[in-house]
């Protein structure tokens, strides 16, 4: 199998520009975004640690807040869907995956200017299903945990 066989064609397209210019947090780079809704809410950032661990991040601005000034659950779950989906896609060897189920627990709130980080983990993979979890932190303090199930398209 060649590299081009395992890369989903969606991810070969030209990245979409985020709807707003935001400087990357120290040590992070902007992710290539291919989903219009992620470009609408983004940019999203990423860094790869020396040990290969990936950390994703976004910076909370007023587009992401609820009426109380906290980051909206919808934004947190959008970030989760984007990042857990990326982990499922990488874990499946580049096969397209769609969300079947996602559960989020909101441990604390993030606010304007906070850098929300996400660390994902593939808990289990079968031929057709990926189980992916993630923790979300602000300055090391947990704000959300998520677990999810992804269907690997075309596999039974």
């Amino acid at each position: 199998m060649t590299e081009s066989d395992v890369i989903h064609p969606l991810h070969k397209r030209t990245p979409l520009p985020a709807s707003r210019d935001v400087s990357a947090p120290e040590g992070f780079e902007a992710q290539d975004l291919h989903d219009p809704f992620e470009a609408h809410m983004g940019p999203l950032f990423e860094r790869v640690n020396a040990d290969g661990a990936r950390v994703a991040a976004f910076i909370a601005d007023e587009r992401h807040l609820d009426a109380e000034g906290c980051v909206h659950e919808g934004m947190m779950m959008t970030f989760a869907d984007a990042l857990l989906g990326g982990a499922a896609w990488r874990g499946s060897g580049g096969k397209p995956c769609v969300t079947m189920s996602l559960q989020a627990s909101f441990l604390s709130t993030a606010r304007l200017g906070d850098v929300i980080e996400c660390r994902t983990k593939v808990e289990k993979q079968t031929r057709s299903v990926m189980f992916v979890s993630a923790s979300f932190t602000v300055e090391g303090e947990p704000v959300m945990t998520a677990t999810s199930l992804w269907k690997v398209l075309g596999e039974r």
Partner: protein
Amino acid sequence: MTASPFPAGFVQVQTQGFGGFAGPVMGGNNAKGALYLLDIAPQHLNGADRLHGGMMMSLMSIVMGEVAAATAATKDATAKAHALSLNCDFVSAGETGERIEGRAIITRATRSVMFISGTLSVDSRVLMTATGVYAIKGAAE
């Protein structure tokens, strides 16, 4: 498909911040009770031209959040509701131009916690089912 007008009496909910930027989500009442509507637009899509999973969960969190806030306010006008947990199941995909109908019901409300279930659908096709646990803050404790 051209967008048809929203029913009389429907107004945009959560107009500020995320709700306004991600939406607009319209809210109102029909014969079956509180109803929320979203027309799927190009900015709501994923790379496969379907409704993005994050937008689907965002709409669900807005629908359940509105119902939670309204229910908390019936106990104490100053009470606020916030989500402790949301569990969303992706039953089918949404296509651009479709109008999503969102509903949520309170399964049980105690003094401090509400259990809510919600559904998003396009006509008779279910897109998402979800359950949420919400905390009530500010009510007499």
